[in-house]
């Protein structure tokens, strides 16, 4: 999908793209932090038929929803393509030895062979976290590996 970026002097930026269904969508990022999502008219391709005005916060929530779904979806595709590869979720409990430490401290990959590809903290997702990434109680780790590997990660983090 090609996204075209256009400068709107004094207002902000506009991103527009065409969906597979043929509808054109434009997203205006206002300099004030507001967003506007508009759908272009079929009859008059320059004009919009509907638009949503989003506050900064609302835009964040929508981005989280779309982003989270897409990450999960991509893992599903990946694990389907390679036999034996699975994805799973492991929670960092309050009693976990690594709550309050960094991801690198767990030496997870070395010990289990499975990879932690994302850390979900509250509503914030960090994709491919660095070894220095802090882990807190309640975080959820998205793990990719064999069935055995994922079980080992779970054991490692529950201490």
């Amino acid at each position: 999908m090609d996204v075209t970026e256009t400068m709107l002097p004094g207002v902000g930026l506009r991103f527009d793209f065409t969906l597979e269904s043929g509808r054109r969508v434009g997203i205006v990022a206002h300099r004030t932090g507001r967003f506007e999502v508009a759908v272009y008219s079929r009859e008059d391709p320059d004009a919009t038929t509907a638009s949503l005005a989003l506050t900064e916060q609302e835009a964040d929530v929508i981005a989280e929803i779309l982003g989270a779904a897409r990450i999960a979806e991509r893992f599903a595709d990946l694990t389907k393509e390679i036999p034996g590869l699975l994805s799973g979720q492991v929670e960092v409990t309050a009693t976990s030895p690594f709550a309050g430490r960094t991801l690198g401290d767990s030496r997870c990959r070395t010990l289990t062979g499975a990879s932690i590809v994302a850390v979900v903290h509250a509503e914030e997702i960090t994709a491919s976290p660095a070894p220095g990434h802090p882990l807190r109680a309640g975080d959820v780790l998205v793990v990719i590996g064999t069935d055995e590997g994922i079980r080992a990660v779970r054991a490692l983090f529950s201490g």
Partner: protein
Amino acid sequence: MPVEAVRAAGAPGSASSTLLIEFGLVLLALGLLGMIARRFGVSVVPLYLVAGLAFGAGGVAPLPGSAAFISGAAELGIVLLMLTVGLEFTGKEFTATLRRQGPAGLVDLVLNAGPGFVAGWLLGAGWLGACALAGVTWVSSSGIAVQVLSDLGRIANRETPAVLSILVLEDIAMAVYLPVIAVLLGGGEWWQAALAAAAAVGAVLAVAWSSARYQDRLTRAVVSDDDEQVMLRVLGITLLVAGLTQVLEASAAVGAFLVGLALTGRAAERARAVLTPLRNLFAAIFFLSFGLSTDPADLLPVLPVAAALGGVTVVTKMVTGWYAAAREGASPRGRLRAGGTLVARGEFSILVAGLATTAGLVELGAVATGYVIVLAVVGPLVARFAVDLGRPLLRPSAVAG
């Protein structure tokens, strides 16, 4: 509040109580107009202008107690208006716009300043008056246009970058035009005007350069966690610079605009957030005050001329918008909308009209005043119904659906 101040404000029958009552009523009236405008989806600026005409000099209620205060507030209004116009731009945006839509800016100048110049000449106002009226007819109102775009849900439209580009180029051009015309109308010689032009170009370049180079320092100088601090610092700097440019016989508006241009990034963001409510209040008073100081009786005789000039420049602005939007690849309907949005004239034209009147070109000032009021009222309507108005121009295939 100190006790003395409370006493002064509350002293029965004093001039200040008349001021408070009148000003309070004025604000309520403006609020009511804003509500009406919102209800009917029209821009509120023309309503302020017409309300100003109805009150004040030659109107139904002359507002004797608050006239002086309102004219002072109006001065603050134009300064704040220009500051926020400047805050919207960055040097980078301007250069990119110039590269992309430079030719459209030139077409805009020739097509729209031209009729004003010719009309000024025909009115016998001499080359000076002609140059002033050219400025009045040239520049669209960024305030009204951006408002119209957002009210009509057209920000995301394909033709909108063309409209915004024209507005940017005009606003920057004004930073050079205003000081020149101010010096000339103030009785300056050609060489002084040339000096003013050079100074203005130099100032714009210097501001663009220094704001990029000293951005950190500038930001530190204005940004604070405390909103009040930001407001006081930015307002203080702006008024100081505006006052100094006024002393130099350039318009105070130019100084305020340059300050806005100098502030970028986080500083601009904070300044905008803190000053927008103040800007809204004082800008409303600026538009109102323009109407207040105009006697409707003076306008009647010049109205035919103003309306005719308005008619011509509605068409020339439509052509400008058509051309600029075509460069962005917009369809005929988008091009009509772009032209329509640019029709409204406003703050800059009012400034130039005011300068002309102050300089003793009274008849020209009256024509310019009538012209601005006509186009401020007609402009948003043309913007809204541009496609319907231009329907005969469209090929049947483009209109279908």
